[in-house]
């Protein structure tokens, strides 16, 4: 390794037509770190990963991955990274062993080593008995386990995981998280994207919160939460039996409100700024005849951090239309969402 960092990103920008998916971001990832990208769909997480895996050419800026220049030394980068893509990388009509063997061969691994590694990894995810079954016959959870070990097969220095637990049952989710910690302990740097707050929090050494192509906060989970405390933020939820849209609008307009989120018809989650913020908000509600039945102040979670740094809840923007990946000149998408 010719650099102190596993990944160094400088001014990276990726545009699709007029749409800027990744907007001039810079960050470093330490060697042997689990680095989490947290953000809603379409924030630029996947695009950043695709650029770092040489699957997309940056529009501007550059990066060093495993000490090699992304643009000039693409082959050397590719030889040292592993990718767990959101779309599973495996052929349905081939068996697990055939899939793994195919990819192992592309990395010029010795034959015997590939076979040993296949057995070892299948054992690791409890799928040895499925070795010679076609992937098409697997359940989603089983496929994802193969998808993950496919990236581990070549013993990469850095592994990129794009939403590795998306759409999985809780049991498989837990076992995959366990696996991620495990490979990290053995010395692999892990770059993880997720829109699950908890996953980012429990797995990552550091988290980059990304919104609209920009990194809006980057620190350890504990420090990110401290951000809220240091800013004298109070995060609390309040239940108002006769909550009206008018009242919500009124609260939103208060200067001391940093962020507001309404998860259902009666509840509000508010981040209040300053020492008197909390009192001002409660006074406003009472003044308007709001019938408060419950108030809870919360220890700030990552969700609150996200709320306060972006001003909106993550789920507000998760439902965006999917746009097909473009690889031809005949139809340019307005925006690319992954």
């Amino acid at each position, binding site marked *: 390794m010719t650099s102190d960092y596993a990944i160094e990103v400088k001014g990276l920008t990726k545009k699709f037509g007029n749409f800027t998916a990744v907007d001039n971001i810079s960050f470093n990832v330490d060697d042997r770190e689990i680095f989490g990208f947290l953000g809603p769909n379409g924030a630029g997480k996947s695009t950043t990963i*695709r650029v770092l*895996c*040489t*699957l*997309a*050419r940056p529009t501007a800026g550059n990066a060093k991955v495993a000490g090699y220049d992304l643009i000039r030394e693409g*082959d*050397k980068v*590719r*030889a040292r*990274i592993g*990718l767990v*893509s*959101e*779309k*599973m*990388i*495996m*052929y349905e*009509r*081939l068996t697990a062993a*055939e899939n793994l063997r*195919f*990819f192992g*061969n*592309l*990395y*010029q691994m010795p034959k015997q080593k590939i076979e040993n590694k296949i057995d070892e990894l299948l054992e690791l995810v409890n799928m040895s008995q499925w070795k010679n079954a*076609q992937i098409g016959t697997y359940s989603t959870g089983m496929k994802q386990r193969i998808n993950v070990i*496919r990236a581990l097969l070549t013993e990469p220095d850095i592994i990129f995981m794009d939403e590795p637990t998306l759409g999985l049952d809780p049991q498989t989710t837990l076992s995959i998280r366990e696996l991620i910690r495990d490979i990290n302990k053995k010395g692999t740097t892990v770059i993880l994207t997720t829109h699950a707050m908890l996953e980012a929090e429990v797995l990552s050494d550091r988290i980059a919160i990304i919104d609209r192509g920009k990194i809006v906060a980057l620190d350890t989970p504990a420090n990110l939460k401290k951000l809220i405390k240091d800013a004298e933020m109070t995060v609390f939820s309040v239940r108002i039996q006769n909550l009206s849209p008018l009242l919500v609008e009124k609260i939103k307009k208060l200067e001391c409100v940093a962020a507001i989120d309404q998860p259902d018809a009666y509840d509000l989650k508010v981040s209040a700024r300053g020492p008197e913020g909390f009192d001002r908000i409660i006074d406003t509600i009472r003044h308007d005849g709001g019938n408060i039945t419950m108030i809870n102040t919360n220890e700030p979670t990552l969700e609150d951090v996200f709320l306060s740094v972006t001003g909106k809840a993550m789920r507000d923007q998760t439902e965006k239309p999917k746009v*097909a*990946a*473009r*690889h*031809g*000149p*005949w*139809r340019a998408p307005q925006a690319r969402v992954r």
Partner: protein
Amino acid sequence: MGLIKGLQDSFRIAWKDLLEFERNRIGLIFLFLMPFFMLIMTGFIFPTGNTYTDIPVAVVDMDHSQASQQLIAQIQAMNNKTNVMDFKDALSLDDAKTMITRGQIYGAIVVPQGFSDSLAQGKQANITVISDNSIPQVSMVMQGLATQVINVLGAQRGAMEVQMLSIKANQTVNPAAVIAPFKVDAQGTVPGNMNYFSFVAPGLLMMIVMMGAMTGIPRAISHEKEIGTFDGILAAPVNEISIIFGKTIAQTVRGFIQGIIVLAIAILIFGVTIKGSLLLTSGILLLGIFSFIGLGILLTAMSNNEETATILMTVLQFPMMFLTGIFFPIQQMPWFMQWLSEVLPLTYAVTAMRKVMILNAGIMDIIPEVAILIVFGAIMLAVAIPVFRRSMTR
């Protein structure tokens, strides 16, 4: 990256593609069924030599003389040997025309009034042949047959007259040489009769293989990109050229297997024969597939998904089917269509294949076609590689 590693990667990708294809049952079944149906359909809908029998034709005698009745009896006697025509009775010319309009007959042989008078006066006697204009092909055949029959009968009569004249003049002559001094002896360069199926088979072989290759490429590239597996190959230390070669090898092998199947069906079921060398036939088959693949990859790289790519291929296939001389000779097309057909690589593949399969052509006889196919294929691949490379890392 070394050349050996690049080639190894190509073969691995090709092997993977073929393995996937081999596991696709329905795909395999269609590999057999598609050429089978195509051959059956095109093999039987077109005329294959003297297939006409029992064409309904009316015979109208408007002269009612001994001579006219004799002529009609001779026509019927001749037809009894071949049964090409099935004679119906009609009372008059108008009656025959009505029958044609109603679709009861395809034509009529009319002996007009004054037939016997003309004969008696030593003039040429008219016989009218009318036919159904709405079906040009059948009416042409019918007209030809009727004319042929009447000419033969006329020649017989002429020969008799010449014979009698020669006896009168006390000279020995060959009546046939007097009536028809020139005799045509039509021959091809290879012995045996050609039917339409033999004409179509080489072209069909190339066309089926071309269609297979051109539908196979969008599936092999766009589909893999859409389902995301391509990312796995692109994020591995593999050169894009290896990927293209791997895909090309897989499609070529697939197309070649399909070509062999088409050839086997054509030979075993439809009695097509290969007059030339089997090795050269295979060589042209491979070269033909190769020449399409660069174009296929180029179009696939330029379109953003499998659907667009498939539509583009279909649009391209259509003119190739009709303008490359597979079903209809290029020579009978108007000049701009001929020009268009000269631009399509399939034309040269079909021409070369036909020359080898029917005319027993050697490699030296098809050098222009082979050269054009190689150059076209190489140019297409050369253009396809950078376009593909760019489209993959957008």
